[in-house]
């Protein structure tokens, strides 16, 4: 399966820029070969004298469309690996009409004008200068036309869905239209100029036939490919089945998954696969299939609700009775995607994990290799707490973000404190053994009339003392599904000069998903005396500092709120909009949320590339803010601790204060008609 640079979120990387340069080279070459370096030739299409635009453009469009459809049909790539532009009816209809007017006047479009410029056309140069001016004009007029820019926004919309056809039928129809357009173009040229070398030529016949054949071929390809990859994950079992069909499924053993298949899927790291161990916790802790979740039968439906009819759920126990009953019960409750492991855990051990040498019957070489691979993957010593306490020391150069593996290997080490920031009911139900519960809001309060401010050092130190924290401790902060919670807690540690803290990537959701140990016991805490450091905080700024750098060259203010709040479309503050000159990068853009609510930071390279686009240099003075300082703490963490920008500061009071101080300037050009309240 091909991963594109867009799919990997690396379109901003230097590799992508270099590849874009090469693709651009081929693009320009093809345009010039086609004769698109001549404005007269381009304009000809509108006077029916030279139809090259239609011929080249539709040949290219159909070629790429068929090529991509084959790539997808053969299972080599998925369409979600390609950036799909949203459909915005108003903007694209008006934009298209205007573009057509400009195209026929200038007789160039942006791409062809580049080719024309390369071929020495002065009118192409003038056109390009005009287009640069037109882009600037658009930016200057943006506030006036913003409503048109988003008018009729449908999100990503495929044409075959819009017109109610199947994809393959639409492709065939579109190909036929293109072929007809080729023949009509030739015919029009013959009428207008008396010369049409391709009209009725063997070449055009063969070309037309080839395109149509390829379009028809998709009908043969697609169902086969779907069948191959659909079993059993995507088999569309009816959501609500009656008892009869349930019995039929049981009879045909369609409710089973074989151990070998499960092992292969787990090893391949297939997404959307949830393996559930329904045995008691003690048995689970002794041994379980790697990656399995431990869920008591009574809570199955509740816990599995997010995965209902999404991907594949596999239940197992020692034998098959409990999973079978549970599976049928879930199916009655509307789960169409639950399977049980044939022969249970015992079968998995016997068929997948039993060493080749102990097997009664000899194995083929291929199967022996498979078994050894499974054993290496599943039978490796489980990484659990308390294992290798002394072997894996806490090192001085601790990463800013630690993975679950890192924590699991060190759990129980003296001096390692894990702080769980999830809501109390979730903590009470199950948490990482020994972790301390903390409500992040207890670090904030009203200071000088501004709500939700990080508390002063003396108050934070008092809380740290109650938690039994010491200066020598290494602290790992664990959240549920919000990385800005540990980031905000990190601001409290930084305020007291305690930099030996890390955020656990993926939080408790990832820990639980990986089936790592958890319990509900409260840790033993001895109260400590955490020293009050008053001058460690050199990163929090107030509105005066922000106001002073407004418009200062080189300084960057980053507003990390969601775009709608930045633009002023939405507001729940005194005034809507943003600080003049502030740029918008929502904090959510720095993280990836998986389908099962596991939130992780994007790869550091990706983040670095993204921020290089926004921040001119390493030493740029940066101020981050949001509404209350919470979301901005995450961006602060990313910039300062992950990417190492030295001059990052945090405007804690944020938009709450700025909006309420009417003497401070703001930018809000959202038309009154769509202003949120």
């Amino acid at each position, binding site marked *: 399966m091909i991963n*594109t*640079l*867009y799919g990997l979120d690396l379109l901003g990387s230097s590799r992508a820029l270099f590849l*874009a340069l090469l*693709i651009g*080279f081929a*693009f320009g*070459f093809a345009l010039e070969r*086609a004769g698109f*370096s001549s404005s007269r030739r381009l304009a000809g299409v509108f*006077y029916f004298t030279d139809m090259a635009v239609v011929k*080249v*453009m539709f040949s290219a*469009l159909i*070629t*790429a*469309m068929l*090529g*991509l459809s084959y790539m997808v049909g053969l299972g080599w790539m998925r*369409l979600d*690996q*390609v950036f*799909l*532009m*949203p*459909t*915005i009816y108003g903007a*694209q*209809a008006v*934009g*298209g009409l*205007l*573009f*057509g*007017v*400009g*195209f026929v006047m*200038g*007789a*160039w479009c942006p*791409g062809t004008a580049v080719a024309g410029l*390369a071929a*020495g*056309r002065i*009118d192409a140069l*003038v056109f390009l200068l005009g*287009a640069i*001016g*037109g*882009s600037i004009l658009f930016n200057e007029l943006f506030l006036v036309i913003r409503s048109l820019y988003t008018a009729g926004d*449908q999100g990503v919309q495929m*044409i*075959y869905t819009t017109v109610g056809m199947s994809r393959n039928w*639409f492709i065939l129809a579109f190909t036929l239209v293109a072929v007809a357009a080729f023949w009509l173009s030739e015919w029009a040229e013959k009428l207008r100029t008396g010369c049409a070398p391709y009209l009725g030529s063997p*070449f055009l016949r063969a*070309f037309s036939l080839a395109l149509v054949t390829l379009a028809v071929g998709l009908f043969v390809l697609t169902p086969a490919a779907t069948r191959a990859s659909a079993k059993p994950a995507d088999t569309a079992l009816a959501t609500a089945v009656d008892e009869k069909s349930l019995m039929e499924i049981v009879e045909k053993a369609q409710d089973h998954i074989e151990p070998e298949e499960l092992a292969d899927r787990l090893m391949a790291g297939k997404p959307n696969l949830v393996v559930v161990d329904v045995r008691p916790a003690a048995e689970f802790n002794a041994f379980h299939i790697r990656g399995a979740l431990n869920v008591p039968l009574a809570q199955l439906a509740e816990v599995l609700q997010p995965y209902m009819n999404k991907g594949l759920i596999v239940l197992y126990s020692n034998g098959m009775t409990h999973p079978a009953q549970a599976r049928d019960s879930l199916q009655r409750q509307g789960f169409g995607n639950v399977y049980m492991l044939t022969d249970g855990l015992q079968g998995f051990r016997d068929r997948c994990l039993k060493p080749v040498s102990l097997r009664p019957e000899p194995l083929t070489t291929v199967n022996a290799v498979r078994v050894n691979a499974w054993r290496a993957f599943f039978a490796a010593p489980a990484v659990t707490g308390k294992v290798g306490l002394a072997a894996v020391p806490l090192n001085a150069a601790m990463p800013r973000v630690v993975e679950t593996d890192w924590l699991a290997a060190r759990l129980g080490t003296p001096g390692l404190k894990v702080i769980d920031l999830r809501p109390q009911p979730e903590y009470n139900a199950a948490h990482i053994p020994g972790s301390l519960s903390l409500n992040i809001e207890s670090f904030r309060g009203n200071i000088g009339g501004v709500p939700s401010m990080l508390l002063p050092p003396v108050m934070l130190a008092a809380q740290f003392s109650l938690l039994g924290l010491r200066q020598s401790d290494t602290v790992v902060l664990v959240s549920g599904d919000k990385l800005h919670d540990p980031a905000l807690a990190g601001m409290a540690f930084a305020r007291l000069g305690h930099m030996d803290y890390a955020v656990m990537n993926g939080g408790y959701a990832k820990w639980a998903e990986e089936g790592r140990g958890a319990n509900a016991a409260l840790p033993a805490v001895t109260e400590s005396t955490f020293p009050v450091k008053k001058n460690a905080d050199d990163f929090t700024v107030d509105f005066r500092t922000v106001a002073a750098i407004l*418009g200062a060259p080189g300084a960057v203010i980053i507003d990390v709120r969601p775009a709608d709040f930045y633009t002023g479309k939405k507001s729940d503050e005194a005034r809507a909009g943003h600080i003049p000159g502030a*740029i918008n990068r929502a904090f959510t853009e720095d993280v990836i949320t998986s389908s099962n609510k596991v939130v992780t930071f994007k790869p550091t390279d990706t983040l670095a590339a993204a921020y*290089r686009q926004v921040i*001119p240099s390493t030493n740029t003075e940066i101020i981050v803010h949001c509404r209350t300082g919470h979301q901005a703490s995450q961006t602060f963490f990313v910039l300062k601790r992950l990417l190492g920008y030295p001059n990052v500061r945090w405007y804690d009071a944020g938009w709450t204060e700025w909006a309420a101080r009417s003497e401070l300037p703001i930018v809000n050009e959202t038309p009154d008609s769509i202003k949120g309240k």
Partner: protein
Amino acid sequence: MITETDILHTGPKPYANPYLAGVLLGLVLLASFVILGAGLGASGGIARIGASLSMCVSAPHTLGSEYFGKWGANPLNYYLVFMFIGAFVGALLSALSANRVRIQVERGAASPVSRRLWYALAGGVIVGFASRLAQGCTSGQALSGGALLLTGSLVFLVCLFAGGFATAWFVRRQWHD
């Protein structure tokens, strides 16, 4: 003595078969989808040059503006800008190898140079503006989005030809011989 071969060597070579040139362009587009995960684009590069000029005039104004502001302080650090540069070099190589480079204003023989250049300038301004509004041009919307079968891109394509044909008669004089 001038032979026919000499004439062939000094005159521009004819353009490629438009259908095969189209297939080549389509394969380049396919490569862009597969490697970059995004289609071809030209107006994006132009707009970012505009944003960078705007930054030169007033960085705070540009960074604070709603549209260009989100591209940050280095608008040129973007894949479409590199694609734009690559396209120029690729076209130059093709034009040189086919002996098609001519410094000239392309126009009808009976039309003054000034008319053609004014039309090119006005057309450029409109196209630059419209590309931003529609979030793409003939390359990014009509061709790339069309090949992806996106509804909005095909709406753009149809409207483009409608706008062009509706205007063609009024601007025809630049091509009069």
